[in-house]
């Protein structure tokens, strides 16, 4: 079971949705443009550098990319591609807490959990924040 959302901008009539296998069907509704929303990347600096370097060299569907997704490290969610934050515990709890860069960055050992948090955050962010263009 997975939650799917589609957001309609009432000022333009245009739509936006996160890419998931189920949501592919919404593509029929008009002219499509696909963009990167976020990255789930290693929390620690050096693994993140290695991860980013490798992922720049290989395609997302490659076996090497698949291997990097299986690294046994802590993961964080970076939503900078849509102008969002690197998720903090405050973002996760919906609290506007005191921001201390990096120290309150949220992390997960289970990458799937990080992806779930990423999707939850992005769906809310699309509703509140990002403009649909």
């Amino acid at each position: 079971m997975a939650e799917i959302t589609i957001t309609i901008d009432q000022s333009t009539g245009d739509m936006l949705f996160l890419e998931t296998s189920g949501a592919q069907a919404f593509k029929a509704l008009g002219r499509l443009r696909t963009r990167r929303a976020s990255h789930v990347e290693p929390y620690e600096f050096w693994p993140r550098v290695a991860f980013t370097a490798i992922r720049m060299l290989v395609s997302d569907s490659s076996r090497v990319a698949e291997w990097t997704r299986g690294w046994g490290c802590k993961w964080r969610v970076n939503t900078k591609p849509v102008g969002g934050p690197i998720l903090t515990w405050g973002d996760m709890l919906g609290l506007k807490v005191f921001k201390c860069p990096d120290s309150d960055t949220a992390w997960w050992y289970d990458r799937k959990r990080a992806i779930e948090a990423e999707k939850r955050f992005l769906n809310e962010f699309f509703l509140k924040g990002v403009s649909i263009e």
Partner: protein
Amino acid sequence: MSKYNTIQTEYKDGECLVEALNDVGYTEVEVHELPQNLVGYHGDLRQQKAHIIVRRKHIGMSANDLGFLRNADGSYSQIVSDFDSSKHNAEWNVRLKCAYGERGAMKVAQKKGFKYLGKIVMSGKVQYRFMDRSAS
């Protein structure tokens, strides 16, 4: 890593377009398999043809018919006279697009067997939420 898709709405589904026209106030809409001539405000037959038509009597005094012509690629183009472009202006078109988007999303969701969870309206946006029961 997640990706997102933005969609510039195009009228591709005639049924949803008719429902969207209903939603913006035109409850009497003609649908034709073959395109029919539009009628002008004098009652004159115009050269323009359309598959989906809102007749002028449902639009207002001195109006021309509003039409949507199905193109070869299956999308619909709107035919609106200059005279009626103040009524069927950009703002009206956005309302129609929003209504079409909602109808289209609901139809897709129903077809895919998604469970509708509700909608949230916030900051000039409407978000429709569904549960994909087939996803792992």
